[in-house]
């Protein structure tokens, strides 16, 4: 064999080294390129013109979805792919900050790091048969119950309220509840808000997420009209294994090829400024008239006008609506002026939509730190927009807004969205310290009693049904004027930062268990299980059609006693023993939701008995709790924190200046019988004749002596004004006369 020449050997070695270097470098560059692509910021145009969203669909694994091609006979040549679109993957391809978007208000309810914010509308677990209306919230607002604490796991919560849930919350996507394996996670639904046409039907979405179908993962695809969903997750058993060839197949999608263009892209009409109609699906609020006979269940009547129903305030016009005459309502003045909801309720990528209350900036700073909070939200409240952070002239520092920049800087200025600066002619500026803007300008025009209101979240507005009554359960009343601070907490009469603010109010009704001084609610299912089917029909009457929106009927004390007896005797099924787990004394503090209620582990392997299975059975309604008497034949009432009404501030619809309180003068409020003080609130008890009606000032705990005396002086105001002007004129003439004489005398001397 010939020996290689040294020069050749050197050349060969150099070539190998160069090749290795090129390979290694190329591999490193490729790796870096892949990493860089994964870390790319969101793809945006930064133009005011909308980007036309003609995009590829992707499934949850990020794979492209294309409908199979059709053969000459029109039938698909291959099997439909079947997988539903994942909006997280589809939208997230360009909007790589999708995870940031999930930290917003619409999907952060179960995030312990998110600010609670001012108490808002809860999810109300309402059941007509068991006379339940229970406020629930993952945010743990005072007066609400966490779903887990009442035995409602995340999946059941999603089923109960999925009709109006946008999805995406950790409770709905990270929960380990078993049934989510079959139904799929309840993904954040971008399109339910961001579609600008009727190409996305939230009612179709509901038909997929309701209890009879449970197709969470497929709902968005169906609602967007992308295809038909074949199959129902509800039919998959708890032991369903997708890998089992004999298992029932999961639901799948038969895509509509007509929705795809020649490049397999789909057009979604999406814009930055979302039309109001998208918001209205979840955020509609409709007045539904006076409480019948003063309360929902035969209690004392509100004063009746000749035409029936409660009377309007003196000199005022009744704008009372019921569901049928909604056409009388004028809509919010901001919308009438051409604004959109999103012009005030704005957000950035974080989707922390501005709520617009005065304490919002402080709440967010407390949760996130001042450097992470958008300062401009201070000028997106009523005061901030119309006045700037300086607030109306003459207000005290407590009544003002936090100045996020030195005086005069643009960040402090009002006039956002061309908001006019109100003059408030004739209104002493002291009122700005005592009353919120919404007290005079928002909600229905106050009358001599509260009226009922129905909302999308509580009364399933937006879903078609045949029967929908004005006094449907749950009974929510408005406006109830309470004194609260900027964070929405009730404060005393003499609190410096308290303002009278209108609220919606719900008096909870529910069955529960009393342990110590704490009442833990029971879900309607548990109540029916405890009472038994046959007895339930006798005591509570037949359950109405769940699709219709019905009213609570009264429930006699005798029946409540009997039901409480049955609940007391009820033995819940023994829970399955699980492997020993570390003792936990609180709900999980991590972001992910759990199904573990707030109990402690009693012993290794044996789950503790939830509080809704133990303790004395009670029924809460109309602001009172009821237990059986000692001899067990009657009811006795007692006070409990759990029976207190839950209130949340209302801010819409805003009425124009001519329809605000005070437009007709001071006596809109400073007069005997004025709604702000004397309008009545009913406790809306389920028990007949047990409702208590209170005037607003009593609900607030106001001392009325001076106010009543002040109101009594108003009829004499013309005398005061005449006297004052007459004296002023006389004094002016005296000063003029003698002043002129003095000047002329001085002139003569000179």
């Amino acid at each position, binding site marked *: 064999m010939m020996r290689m020449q040294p020069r050749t050997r050197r050349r060969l070695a150099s070539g190998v080294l160069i090749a290795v270097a090129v390979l290694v470098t190329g591999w490193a560059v490729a790796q870096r390129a892949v990493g860089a692509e994964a870390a790319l910021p969101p793809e945006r145009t930064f133009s005011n013109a909308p980007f036309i969203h003609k995009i590829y669909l992707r499934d949850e694994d990020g794979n492209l979805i294309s409908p199979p091609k059709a053969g000459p006979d029109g039938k698909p040549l291959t099997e439909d792919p079947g997988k539903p679109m994942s909006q997280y993957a589809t939208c997230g391809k360009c909007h790589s900050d999708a995870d940031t978007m999930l930290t917003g208000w619409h999907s952060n309810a179960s995030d312990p790091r998110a600010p609670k914010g001012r108490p808002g509308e809860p999810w109300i677990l309402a059941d007509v048969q068991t006379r339940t209306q229970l406020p629930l919230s993952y945010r743990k607002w005072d007066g609400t119950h966490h779903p887990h604490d009442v035995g409602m796991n995340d999946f059941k919560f999603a089923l109960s309220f999925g009709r109006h849930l946008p999805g995406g919350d950790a409770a709905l996507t990270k929960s380990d509840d078993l049934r989510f394996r079959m139904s799929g996670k309840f993904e954040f639904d971008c399109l339910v808000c961001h579609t600008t046409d009727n190409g996305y039907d939230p009612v179709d979405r509901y038909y997929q997420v309701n209890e009879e179908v449970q197709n969470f993962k497929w709902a968005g695809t169906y609602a967007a009209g992308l295809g038909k969903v074949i199959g129902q997750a509800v039919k998959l058993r708890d032991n369903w294994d997708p890998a089992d060839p004999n298992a029932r197949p999961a639901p799948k999608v038969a895509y509509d090829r007509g929705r795809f263009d020649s490049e397999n892209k789909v057009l979604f009409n999406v814009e930055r400024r979302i039309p109001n109609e998208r918001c209205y699906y979840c955020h509609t609020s409709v007045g539904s008239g006076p409480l019948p006979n003063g309360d929902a269940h035969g209690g004392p009547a509100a004063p009746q006008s000749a035409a029936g129903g409660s009377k309007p305030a003196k000199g005022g016009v009744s704008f009372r609506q019921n569901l049928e005459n909604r056409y009388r309502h004028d809509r919010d003045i901001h919308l009438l002026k051409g604004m959109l909801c999103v012009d005030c309720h704005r957000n950035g990528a974080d989707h922390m939509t501005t709520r617009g209350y005065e304490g919002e900036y402080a709440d967010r700073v407390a949760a996130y730190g001042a450097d992470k909070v958008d300062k401009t939200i201070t000028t997106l409240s009523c005061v901030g927009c119309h006045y700037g952070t300086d607030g109306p002239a003459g207000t005290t520092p407590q009544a003002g807004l936090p100045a996020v920049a030195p005086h005069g800087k643009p960040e402090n200025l009002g006039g956002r969205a061309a908001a006019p600066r109100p003059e408030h002619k*004739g209104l002493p500026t002291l009122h*700005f310290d005592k009353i919120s803007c919404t007290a005079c300008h928002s909600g229905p025009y106050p009358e001599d009693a509260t009226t009922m209101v129905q909302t999308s979240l509580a009364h399933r507005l937006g879903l078609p049904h045949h029967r929908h009554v004005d006094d449907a359960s749950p009974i929510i009343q408005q406006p109830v004027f309470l004194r609260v601070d900027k964070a929405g907490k009730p404060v005393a009469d003499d609190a410096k930062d308290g303002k009278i603010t209108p609220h919606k109010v719900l008096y909870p009704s529910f069955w529960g268990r009393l342990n110590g001084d704490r009442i833990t609610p029971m879900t309607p299912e548990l109540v029916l299980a405890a009472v038994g089917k046959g007895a339930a029909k006798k005591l509570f009457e037949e359950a109405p059609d769940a699709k219709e929106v019905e009213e609570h009927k009264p429930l006699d004390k005798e029946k409540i006693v009997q039901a409480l007896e049955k609940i007391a005797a009820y033995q819940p099924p023994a829970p399955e023993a699980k492997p020993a787990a570390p003792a936990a004394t609180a709900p999980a503090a991590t972001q992910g939701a759990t199904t573990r209620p707030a109990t402690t582990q009693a012993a290794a392997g044996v789950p503790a008995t939830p509080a809704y299975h133990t303790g004395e059975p009670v029924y809460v309604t109309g602001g009172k709790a009821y237990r059986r008497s000692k001899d067990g034949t009657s009811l006795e009432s007692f006070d409990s924190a759990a029976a207190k009404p839950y209130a949340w501030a209302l801010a819409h619809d805003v009425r124009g200046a001519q329809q605000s309180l005070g437009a007709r003068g001071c006596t809109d409020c400073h007069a005997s019988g004025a709604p702000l003080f004397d309008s009545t609130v009913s406790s809306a008890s389920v028990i007949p004749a047990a409702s208590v009606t209170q005037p607003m000032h009593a609900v607030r705990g106001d001392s009325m002596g001076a106010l009543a005396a002040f109101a009594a002086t108003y009829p004499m105001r013309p005398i005061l004004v005449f006297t*004052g002007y007459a004296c002023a004129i006389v*004094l002016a003439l005296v000063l003029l006369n003698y002043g002129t*004489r003095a000047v002329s005398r001085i002139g003569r001397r000179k």
Partner: protein
Amino acid sequence: MTTIRILTYIGIVLAVWLALIDYAVMRPKRKALPGARLRGFEGLVYLGFLGCVLLMSVSSFGMIAVGEHMHRWMLIVHMSVAPPYAVCLTILALMWAEQSQFRGERAAESAALGERFYPGEKLAFWVTVAAGFVTIATAMLGMMTWFGSDGQIVLLNTHRIAALVVLVSAVFHGTRVLLGRPAAAVE
């Protein structure tokens, strides 16, 4: 501490100080006058006026001094006393305007010239009438629907300043007229 609260403290101190200075320093040098200076209806109106000034000052400046708004019963008192205050001031202006004209005399010459009031008292009188007129006018204008919030603030601040001036000048005038001279010797 707001501006109006500071001004309130200054006004109260000034009113008390002026009265004390006059009573303690100037009064002993003055001759006694025979008989009471005010009688009958005149005295009644004048005492009524002073009472009204006192009540209105307590109900307003008293609340400001402790850091509160004028509200609730204090507001009721203030507004109830306002009409008698206006009427009394007007009657006093009509009764004493002629007698309170300045004729260029010195204090020592007043009695000889047959003047009823002394120059210091005349000055306090006119300041009270002028400032009183401002308090009434600003209060009345504020009750109308002619002024927005900014105008309301101007009216309110003007009312407060004028009221402080009334307080100081009325207390001084009252001290001079009622207590400004030693008692006449009883023969």
